[in-house]
Structure formats: structure tokens, C-alpha cells
């Protein structure tokens, strides 16, 4: 190559400098995204009737003791759980999408396209329409528990499918779409026999909504993230290596099938919890990681945190939009994410950055 320098030491120093700059830029981006996210959370809280100011709301969130009784109810009881639910669910879907894409070597993988969301919807429908509980003894949470159980069963099926020899990434997505149609058809069966009240509940579920957020659910989401995210971080070299191809990763000492299995378990947990709390929210797990990949590439040390942050930013933005489009009406977030996600999905298929996935 023509640009070989005469002093290899000098060139090496240049390369190290460039690498350090990239690393700093990556840290800067993650911090920047986190700061934007906290602003969005405050914005999310002040959006809606009550005329809260940004600065005052920020203070109340930082120091709950100064809140007036009205602020106490609006900010702490009503709006903050919703805003934080958006953040945690967005982060969970972002991480789930990022790692699904990594382990399945598939740019189109996310909890929605692989059918996990429709499985969860079907599980919820079983509970709402027939009153069946897949998991016994969960009491009032049985709608959520059903949704969770079916999402987990579906990801186990997907995993078994990946174990078959000669399954291409495209075939995986087709299987996901087959799952999606299967569960939608089953869902239609249930809808046909449902009462009007049940139907209303079902639709609400299918469209995805943050309205049922509570502090307990936010806590559960944080707990799941706190368990799964550090695990993924600890495997970040192995996951990065996997993107170089299975053979290469194996030659570096990665136990590829064990890694796939454990990461898929984590991903299933993340997406099942997210989907069972907020219903079917499409495309966040797809769009978030792709934006992160475009910005920092696929070194997991930058890719993973930024995917989580991008997912959270999208959900938080969507939550604001759902309240701001028509004052007084809160639209289901799933509708909005679909509307944003579909054009992106099409662009992706048309191959904006196709060569990363040939």
C-alpha cells in the first residue's frame, strides 16, 4: 500500500491517537444522549394539562420534599411513572433488539418482527377473553403473566429453530413473520368471540400503551435491566467477536452456542417483560440499535449503551408526542412507533447500509 510511512513508530502513535479520539467521542456521545434523555423525561412530565414549568418540575423531581400537594400528585403519582416507564421499556427494547440482531446475525431482528410481541398480545387475550391463566397463582397480574409466558415460549421456539442446520438469517425472519401471523390469526379467533368490553381492552393491549404504568412496574423494569445489562456488558468482546463470523469467534475461544443461548435468554426476558407491561410496541427495538450502529459502529462497548439510550429516547419522544398531537387525548404509543418505524424499516430493506449485512 502506497501510504506506508518510513517511521513505523510514528505511524503507530498516530493510529493510537486517532483511536483514543474515537473512544473519547464515543464516551461523549453516550453522556450527551443521557443528558438529552433526562431533559426529555422532564418534558414528558410537563406535557399535558397543568402548566408545569420546566425548571420547577426539574427541581421537584430532584427534591421531592419541596413539592406542593398538587405537584406531588401530578408529577410523582401520575406522570413520572409513565415517563420512566417509557425510558425503561425503550431501553429494554433497544438492548433486546441490538443483541437479537447480533446473535442472529440479522439486521431485521427485533422483538416485534420475530413475533414476540404478537405472542404476548395473544397471551394477554387469553387472559382477557377466556380468563385463562397460563401461569397459576399470579392473581391480578395474570394478564401480564400470560403475555410474559407466551413471549418466553415463542423465543424458546425461535431458539430451537436457530439450532437447525442451514437456517439462514432471512429464514429466521420468515419464521418470525409466520409466528406473527399465527398469533394474529389466533387473536382474531378470540376477538370474534369477545364481548364489547373485552374487545376494547384487547385493542388497547394490541396498540401498546404506557397508561398502565406504575411504580412497581417501573421497578421491575429497572431490576431486569440491572441484571441483564451488566451481563451483556461482560460478554461484550465475545459479542463483538461474533459479528466477525462464527468461525472466527470460535477460533478466538468464544463458545458460540453457549453465548447465543445465554444472550437469547436475556433478550427474551427483556422483551417479554417490556411487551407484557406496555403491549405491542413496534420497531423501537429495530430503529434504536440501527441509529446507534450508524453513529458508533458495532463495538459493543459503545453500541450496547447507545442502543439502550436510543431506544429510551425514541420511547420518551413518542410518549411526549402521544400527548402533544391532540391536547386532551393520549394516543397509544404503539401506533406512533409503527408510523415512525415503518418508513425506517423500508429504508433499511432498501439497503441504506446494506454492505454491513451481506
Amino acid at each position, binding site marked *: *500500500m502506497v*501510504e*506506508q*510511512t518510513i517511521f*513505523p*513508530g510514528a*505511524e*503507530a*502513535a*498516530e*493510529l*493510537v491517537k*486517532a*483511536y*483514543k479520539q*474515537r*473512544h473519547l467521542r464515543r464516551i461523549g456521545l453516550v453522556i450527551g444522549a443521557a443528558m438529552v434523555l433526562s431533559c426529555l423525561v422532564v418534558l414528558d412530565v410537563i406535557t399535558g394539562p397543568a402548566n408545569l414549568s420546566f425548571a420547577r418540575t426539574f427541581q421537584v423531581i430532584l427534591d421531592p420534599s419541596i413539592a406542593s400537594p398538587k405537584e406531588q400528585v401530578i408529577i410523582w403519582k401520575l406522570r413520572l411513572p409513565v415517563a420512566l416507564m417509557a425510558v425503561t421499556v425503550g431501553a429494554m427494547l433497544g438492548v433486546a433488539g441490538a443483541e437479537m440482531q447480533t446473535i442472529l446475525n440479522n439486521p431485521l431482528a427485533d422483538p416485534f418482527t420475530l413475533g414476540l410481541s404478537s405472542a404476548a398480545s395473544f397471551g394477554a387475550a387469553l387472559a382477557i377473553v377466556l380468563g385463562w391463566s397460563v401461569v397459576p397463582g399470579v392473581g391480578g397480574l395474570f394478564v401480564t403473566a400470560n403475555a410474559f409466558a407466551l413471549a418466553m415460549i415463542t423465543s424458546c421456539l425461535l431458539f430451537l429453530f436457530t439450532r437447525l442446520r442451514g437456517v439462514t438469517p432471512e429464514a429466521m425472519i420468515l419464521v418470525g413473520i409466520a409466528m406473527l401471523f399465527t398469533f394474529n390469526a389466533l387473536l382474531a379467533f378470540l376477538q370474534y368471540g369477545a364481548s364489547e368490553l373485552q374487545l376494547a381492552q384487547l385493542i388497547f393491549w394490541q396498540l401498546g400503551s404506557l397508561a398502565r404504568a406504575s411504580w412497581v412496574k417501573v421497578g421491575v423494569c429497572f431490576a431486569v435491566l440491572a441484571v441483564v445489562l451488566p451481563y451483556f*456488558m*461482560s460478554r*461484550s*468482546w*465475545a459479542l*463483538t*467477536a461474533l*459479528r*466477525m*463470523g462464527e*468461525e*472466527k469467534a*470460535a*477460533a*478466538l*475461544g*468464544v*463458545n458460540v452456542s453457549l453465548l447465543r443461548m445465554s444472550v437469547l435468554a436475556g433478550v427474551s426476558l427483556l422483551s417479554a417483560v417490556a411487551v407484557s407491561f406496555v403491549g405491542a410496541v413496534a420497531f423501537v427495538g429495530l430503529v434504536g440499535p440501527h441509529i446507534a*450502529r*450508524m453513529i458508533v*459502529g*458495532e*463495538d459493543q*462497548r459503545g453500541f450496547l449503551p447507545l442502543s439502550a439510550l436510543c431506544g429510551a429516547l425514541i420511547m420518551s419522544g413518542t410518549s411526549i408526542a402521544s400527548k402533544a398531537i391532540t391536547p386532551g387525548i393520549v394516543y397509544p404509543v404503539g401506533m406512533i412507533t409503527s408510523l415512525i418505524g415503518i418508513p425506517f424499516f423500508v429504508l433499511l430493506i432498501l439497503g441504506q*447500509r446494506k*454492505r*454491513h*449485512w*451481506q
Partner: protein
Amino acid sequence: MSGLQAQGLGFSYGPKTVLQNAGFHSLRPGHLTALIGPNAAGKSTLFRLIAGLSRPTSGGITLNGCDLANLTNRARLKRICFMPQFFAANAALSVFDVVMMAHKQLRGWRVSDADMQTVGQALSQAGIGHLAQAYVSDLSGGQSQMVSVAQALIRESDVYLFDEPTSALDLRHQLEVLTRIKQAMRARQAIGIVALHDLNLAARFADHLILLGQGRIVAEGPPETVLRSKAISEIYGVDVQITTGPREDLLVHAYAS
């Protein structure tokens, strides 16, 4: 007993036997061995068996008298560095990142200054410094192959296995890469095995040749002996003639018989 040695290796892929009773005598540290043989002779399989990525159905491999089957996969891959043949990377990872990944070998989250220095020097020496910030998905086949070799050579191992490291390279880079591999083996006193299709390159760079055909080791020894043996014509199914080149090197001529 020093060196790498294999005895009676057998491997089959379902009903299809890929290797049977394949064995080679001790390969010595500091020497470069070329593994030659026609397509589907079992070269890659032999590499996978040595690296421990596949388990042989029979036979065993020893390194300096120690049976490799007794090592864990991780420990084994630390001593044996294997560069697989196909480098189909479509990832948005920079060349610096992937060489760093090979250097770190999955250990630790933090990247120290020394690590960065090592990687920077390796890239510079490999002549791919100008590609450091490029994504591996944007590289040409030849460039990817040079990155692959850099990834292998940055690791400190006792045995290096290169599966066709020069198949996508132009003449000059073929010579450069093989020279670098040979020098590294000598400097590190490591055992190197390169699978090659080009018999002229094998003759030029290897200290030792192993000829593989239909899952067996047909001939083994110094290039001179193996290339002049009758087996080579039989295994490749061509008429092979050897002459001496202008610099006292062996030249291999093949004619469809």
C-alpha cells in the same frame, strides 16, 4: 519430545469420511510448514482438529509431549492460534477494533495504553495502518485477508495455523505476508502451518511440506523431496515437473495430462 505431532487422526462428517489415519511427525518450533493438497482434501478439517474446534473420531495430537485433548477449549486456543479461511465480515467494526479484539482475547473491558500501542504497531508493521479507521465491511477481499493475518500474528501462541492466508492477495502482498509469517515464526520460535494452493509459494517459503490427499497424509518432508515425489502428480491429477529457477529456487510446472 518437542514440537507438534499427530497420530492416526480420523474425522467424518456424518457418513462422509474426511480424514482417516492422518498423522505427521514432529513439526519443529521456528519452522514454517506448508499444508498442500487439492480442494476437499481435508486441509481445513485438519486445522480445525488441531485447534480443537472439532473432535477427532480417532487419534490424538500432542504439543511438546502434552496431549492437547487434555486442555480446555479456552486454554487450547490460547496456545494454538487459528486463522479460518473465510473472512466474511459485514460488521460496522473498524480495523483497529477487530485487531484490538484479537489482542485482548476476550479479557477485560479496559483497554490500556500498552494495548493501544501494541495494536498500532502491529497495524503499522502489517502495512495496513492507513486502514485503521475503516470499517471491515468496506474492505476488499485482499485487505480483509491482511487484517486477518494481523489479527492472528498479534496473538502470542505456540502454534499458528493459517488457512490460505494469501488466496486473495496480489503478487507483492503474497510475498510480503508469507515473509512476515515466516519471520514471526522464527523470531517467536513458534510452529507455523500454512495451507497453500500455490505450490511455488509453498516451495519458496516452507521448511517442510505436508501433502494431503483424500483424507490421508500422502507425503511429508522437505519441499525438494515432496515436490519431486510421484505422489504429487497422482494426488493433483496433473503432470508436475520441477525445474530450478534463476535464484536456485524450485519452480513447479503443472500440465493437464
